[in-house]
């Protein structure tokens, strides 16, 4: 087997679609499609979190299958009637756009998997604890949700980069909900998010790029800097190009706070503070100018995103007790850009993404 074949085989093992096909064949894939479409449409009408008692959606392999007693069910004429559903529900995709719904305690997914393709959403108070899966006879196959959206099947989509960045800051980064961004923290005994790991910028870049790739419509080729150099020596972090337009966005990422040293056994000797963010403004202006030289007919806009992980009075790794006042001190302290922000229409106001500590405010 070639390297590529092995890679494809490994990917196949991870994907629930492959397991559905293996277990249920072509009919199973067709039912899976109906189930996912229905779930997506349901989540257009109600957020996943509103199903606080969980949600199960299934389609039987046999179109006329009735694995649950229709007696206790309600027929919905379409997903538009979804408001009728209680905080939890079991929903059968019947066909012709109709749905049949039961209270959540009517059945378990195990009762249905022999005759149906079943999607399950498990609600939890903490978003990181909730998950969704496709139930199979051999057990549950998790629907991967690396971006940390409320549901991987209901990712937000945006037409504007500004909206996508705002969503990222508030919903994925602030509490490190994004799976990738969670890796940015040095492990602390209480997982308090006080100190960053060494070289955190790569994790931040990947986390933001993942979100933009999944959510910005008509945006093509969101590239991270390994692949895109504005000049040989100074790579821009992320470049976004919109299809069938001449719009280009350049995103420069900076971070503030303290990180571990290379050995991971102490704090690095430096701290990134306001000056680091100011440097980012100048770099971004330079990148935009270079990009204009390369693409003079394009409309280029630059964005500076600053991940703010500043904590007051954290002076060593494993800082011991720290007050909530110190942990949260910088939540309301804006970055001092002084006069570094040029009066240019092609540079958006810098965005500060405050990474919250895990200490009750």
């Amino acid at each position, binding site marked *: 087997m070639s390297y*590529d074949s092995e890679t494809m085989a490994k990917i*196949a093992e991870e994907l629930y679609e492959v397991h559905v*096909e293996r277990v249920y064949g072509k009919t199973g894939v067709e039912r899976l499609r109906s189930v996912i479409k229905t779930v997506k449409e349901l989540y257009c009408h109600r957020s996943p979190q509103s199903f606080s008692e969980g949600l199960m959606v299934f389609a039987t392999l046999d179109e006329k299958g009735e694995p649950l007693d229709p007696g206790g069910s309600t027929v919905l004429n379409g997903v538009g009637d979804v408001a009728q559903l209680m905080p939890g529900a079991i929903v059968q995709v019947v066909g012709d756009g109709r749905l049949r719904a039961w209270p959540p305690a009517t059945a378990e997914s195990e009762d249905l998997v022999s005759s149906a393709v079943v999607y399950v959403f498990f609600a939890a108070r903490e978003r990181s604890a909730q998950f969704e899966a496709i139930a199979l006879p051999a057990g549950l196959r998790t629907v991967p949700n690396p971006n940390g959206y409320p549901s991987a099947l209901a990712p937000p*989509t945006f037409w504007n980069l500004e909206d996508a960045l705002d969503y990222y800051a508030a919903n994925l980064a602030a509490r490190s909900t994004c799976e990738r961004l969670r890796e940015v923290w040095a492990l602390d005994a209480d997982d308090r998010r006080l100190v960053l790991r060494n070289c955190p910028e790569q994790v931040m870049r990947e986390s933001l790029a993942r979100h933009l790739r999944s959510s910005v419509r008509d945006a*093509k080729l969101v590239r991270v800097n390994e692949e895109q150099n504005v000049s040989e020596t100074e790579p821009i972090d992320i470049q976004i*190009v919109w*299809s069938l*337009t001449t719009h280009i966005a350049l995103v420069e990422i900076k971070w503030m706070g303290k990180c571990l040293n290379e050995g991971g056994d102490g704090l690095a000797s430096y701290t990134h503070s306001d000056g680091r963010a100011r440097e980012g403004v100048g770099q971004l202006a330079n990148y935009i100018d270079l990009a204009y030289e390369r693409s003079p007919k394009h409309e280029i806009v630059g964005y500076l995103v600053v991940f703010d992980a500043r904590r007051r009075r954290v002076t060593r790794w494993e800082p011991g007790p720290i007050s909530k006042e110190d942990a949260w001190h910088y939540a309301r302290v804006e970055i001092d850009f002084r006069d570094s922000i040029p009066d240019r229409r092609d540079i958006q106001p810098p965005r500060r993404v405050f990474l919250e500590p895990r200490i009750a405010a």
Partner: protein
Amino acid sequence: MISPQATFDALELTGAVGDIGGGVTLSELQVLDYLACLLSVYAGADPQIWGFGFSVTDTGAPFARELAEAIDGLLVTGWLVRYERVYRLTPSGEIELGFQRGLAPNRWRLRYLSGSASAAVSMPLPALSDALAHEPGLRRALEYVRRRRLLDATSLELVSRQFAALTEGLGRNPADHEDLMVPAVVWLTYLARGHGSSGARAA
């Protein structure tokens, strides 16, 4: 003359994907149709028989002039409607789609269009578009050769190598997948993770 194949593709893809995300944009339709064409290559077809070809835009997106013209024609007939940036099928468009699905020249395309649309059900449209941007032909056209025409002999050879690996990795021939959702999603995931980039660079 408006391409009948492109007209059917626009109707079918808008019908299949248009109700996800409130509609589908011109560039998303272009991506989905190019993916459908590639899936036909995966299944062993010569891309010449797709009925029209694709080129690459300055921003690295696939584009078929025939598809863009067909969409304009469908707006005139009232079978598609445009809401700001997205297109949706109208009730009369649904009837027309039902009729066109039964036409012999369209029937063989359905498998590939359906595979492409299924991938869009399984993964977000922006993520699908981004993954396909790593397809060897698009990468090569954008970064190295700046050729306008896609699916030339070298690009076909590169993508065919990936499809051979896909067949081996899945342990099943394309003909064994009556529904192409699974190979489409596995291949797009492979591309999204950057595994397919080295071949385009080498060529």
